[in-house]
Structures are given as structure tokens and as C-alpha cells.
């Protein structure tokens, strides 16, 4: 039981990532795919943040007001969680929402052009257009 709990976080992150992955490859709706991509992304964030945790560690803020003794950041075992993954994920979240926004903008434009956001229907329309163009070229 305890062995499972020790890597439980990693399993949950795999579950989330695979749910997102399934959404991206199985769903035909473009908005659903954008949301699923977000799930995939968050799973990776979870993975990084889980790796940063240390037993008995606390938030990596070197000193709080009223604390006279600062735990040594270089001590072992570390008194603080590792701040580096936090920094990486912090910026990644905001970049992630920018990606989502650009994706949604493109989806809105696709909807204006094709009248649908289901990509198999878009593919069908495109095929029909190609056939029509080929016929026109042949004539």
C-alpha cells in the first residue's frame, strides 16, 4: 500500500495525461480537442510540481516575517521544496492560456469559413471542394 502511495502522484498524472491524449486523438470537435490539450498540459504541470516536493519541506520562500532563524537552503535534507519546477510551470501556465486563446481564435475563423467545428465534417467539405475543383479543371 505504501509503495503505491509513494508513486500515486505519478500514476494520477499519467491518467490525466492519457485522458487528455484520448481527447485530442479521439474527439472530432475542435473545441473539445483544445480543452483536452489543456488537460494534457496540466498533467505535465502536476508531474513537475510533484517532483519538486521534499518530505518536510515548505514553500520555497526563504524567510517569513517574525522568523528569526532562516532554514539553510543548502541543508540536507532540504528544508524547502525545489523552486525551479515551480518557476518553469508558472510561466508555462500563462503561455498555455495564450495557446488556448490562439487556438480558439483559429477555431472561430474555421467556423466562419466552414460553418462547423467538427473536423470530419470539415474534411468532407474540403474533399468535396477538391473534387469540384478537379471537375472544373477537367472541363
Amino acid at each position: 500500500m505504501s509503495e503505491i502511495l509513494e508513486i500515486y502522484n505519478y500514476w494520477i498524472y499519467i491518467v490525466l495525461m492519457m485522458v487528455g491524449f484520448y481527447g485530442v486523438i479521439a474527439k472530432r470537435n475542435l473545441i473539445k480537442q483544445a480543452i483536452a490539450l489543456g488537460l494534457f498540459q496540466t498533467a505535465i504541470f502536476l508531474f513537475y510540481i510533484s517532483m519538486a516536493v521534499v518530505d518536510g519541506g515548505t514553500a520555497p520562500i526563504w524567510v517569513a516575517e517574525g522568523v528569526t532563524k532562516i532554514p539553510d537552503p543548502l541543508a540536507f535534507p532540504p528544508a524547502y521544496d525545489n523552486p525551479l519546477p515551480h518557476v518553469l510551470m508558472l510561466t508555462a501556465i500563462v503561455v498555455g492560456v495564450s495557446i488556448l486563446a490562439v487556438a480558439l481564435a483559429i477555431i472561430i475563423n474555421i467556423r466562419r469559413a466552414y460553418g462547423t467545428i467538427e473536423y470530419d465534417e470539415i474534411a468532407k467539405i474540403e474533399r468535396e471542394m477538391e473534387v469540384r475543383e478537379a471537375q472544373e479543371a477537367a472541363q
Partner: protein
Amino acid sequence: MSEVLLIDSVLLLLVAVTAIAVVEVRNLYAAAMLSGIYSLLMALVWVNMHSMDVAFTEAAVGGGISTILLIGTLVHTEREEARRPSRINWGALFVTAVTGAALVYGTLDMPRFGDPNAPIHKLRVPEMINQTVGMTSGASSKQPPPPGYQPRKNLELPLGHGQVFAMRRAQKANEARLDQQAAGHGGHGGVAATEHGETHEAGHDAAHAHPSDDFNGHVPNSVTSLLAAYRGYDTMFETAVIFSAGASLILLLRRRRRPGEKLPDQESANMADQVILRVMCKLFIPFILIFGLYVISHGEIGPGGGFQGGVILATAFILYALIFGRPELHRVVPERLTDVLAAVGVLLYSGVGVATMLLGGKFLDYAVLKPESPGEGGPLGMTLVEWGVGITVCTVMITIFNQLAEEESK
């Protein structure tokens, strides 16, 4: 089993269930709301893992902004996924199952959760910690510490109390002397010498040996100091990425307005007629704004910074637009202003870098901003940089919202 782990397990289980619901629910509005709930749960998990800055950002971005963006998009598209004969795509399920099994096999070799011996913690090399804590050793740019400088000793220094530090160091010096004397003479003489020597050493050290910049304790939040100093270039370009996202939204969706043409009144404008919404919104907005400004400007002291504060500020404006309508938001924050400010933020960030170069340092070497006490240059530079990030993030989020909510051109 610790309570933290227990809370964690339950929360993570909820997160996983929500994720499956997000992907499987057919109504897209429901999927958008569920993804907001998913983000809030995730933010809780991260608070539990002591990652305050990330939790902040996720709550504001995932729970607030991306949900609004999704709903804003759904207004222009469809409410539901198309119906399909079979709901489960077996091929995709097989691929994900195989990939998942491979990853699970990989985790068996992972260090256990919270293991202090994990490689990631071993790589916390002292140089990195020293650099982020901002040891500038009195020089105008980052240099190796003087011989005999022991970071361990120096890091015990409380904020800005050079004298306490000096006394501690003197005490240690005396302990060493005491040992020497104990080896040479009797114990009694040694104690007297210690008491005498301590006062003398403390006064001397406080005056000369320990300039306040020797240890830069002014940036206690290591996340911010890593963000703005250790990974300063990365953060600058990430800000540029956000700026370019805003720019591409404008290019993709903004339509040219004839001069004098006004935004059409939208349905959301009617929400202002509801007293509860109107009053609560007006009550909340000042607090959200103050909190956002606080989070940006106190990023180097506590949890917070430009990214977090920027999104919090943006939510205040978006809330205003949701209740009173976008024409009203345009009256308060014109499109032209947000466009310009998004660029100003990036310019402020890179401008600080250029300024440090002109002052004779390296790009983004904050120590040169205050040559007389380089230790204080760090917090100053980081605050400026965080403001740059905050301005860009806030205005780009407002721009993105504006563009996604823009009426379809007929």
C-alpha cells in the same frame, strides 16, 4: 500516512474524475465549466504541494480566464458536439492504454514522492542557490565570493539585519578562538577572553566587514528571484510569447471599424439591470484590483509576481465587461490603450536589460542598478521586470477577451 498525503490522494482522485467528465460530456458549455472546476481542484493540489505561485496562477487563469474564453468562443460556435453512432473510439483507447502502460512502467523507476535523495534535489547546486539568493559580494556585477566566504553562515542572516549577522559571525570566530585557547591554556581564562572579544568583534564587523549587499536577503521568494534573475532571459521571451499571442488574436479576429462606428450593444449589457450583479460587481472590483496590484508589487517578498498579478488584474476588467457590457469596458480601457500597454510591458522588461548594459553590467544584471549597494539593485530590478510582465499579461488577457467576444462580422 500523513494528512497531507490523504488530502492529496482524495483531491487527485477528484481531479481525475473531473478530467474524464470534461472529455466525455457532450454539452460544450458543461465541458467549459468542468474544465474550470478541474483547474480549481488542481490549484488546491498545488497549494498542498507548497507551490503557491503556481496555484495562484492556475486559479486565476484556469478557473477564471480560460473558462470565460471558452464560453466566449462557444457563443460564436456550437453548443454541443455532433452525435456519433459510437461514443468510444476503440483505436484511440488502445493507443492511450498502451502509452499509459508504458509510462506506468516508467514510474516504477521514479524516486518516491517527496524523496529528498531524488536527482532533482541533488542538482540544487550551491551556485544556483547563491546566485538566486543574490550574493553579489559588493561588486558591481555577480562575481565569485571572496576567499573564506561561507554561504552557509551567511544564509542564516535575518532580513536586512547586518548587525545580527556580524554578531553571529563574531561569536563563531570566538568559538574557534576558545577552542584554540582551551587547547593552550586552562578553561577559565578562555571564557573571560570570549566575553571581551565578542563585543569588540561585533562592533568591528558591523562597521566594516559586512556590507549590506554581502547577502541579499531582500528577495526571499526564491520563485521570483529564479524567475527574474536566474531564468531572466527565458521569462523575457515568455513575456514576448504572450505579447505575440495577443498580437495574433488581433490579426485573426479584429475587424476594421469605420471611424465613429460604435460597438453594438450586446446581451451582456442587460446584466447591468440586475441589481445584485451590478452592486456585487462594483463592490468586488476595487478589491480585485488592489489584490492584483499587491501581488505584482510584492512578488519578490511573498508568493506572487507579474504573471499572477497580471491575470488577477485582468479578471477585474473582464468581470466589469461581463456585467456592464464591452462598450462600457471600452470607455474605461480603450482598445488602443491595451494594445500600446501590451508592448510597453515587454519594452519595460527588455529596457531594464538594456539599462543594465548601458550602466556597464551584463544584460539583466540587476546589481548595477544601484552601484552603491548592489544587493538592493536585485529587488529594484526584479520589481521593474515584474511590472513589465504584469502590464503585458494583464493587457494581453483583456485583448484576448475583447477579440474572442467580438461580434461576428455580418
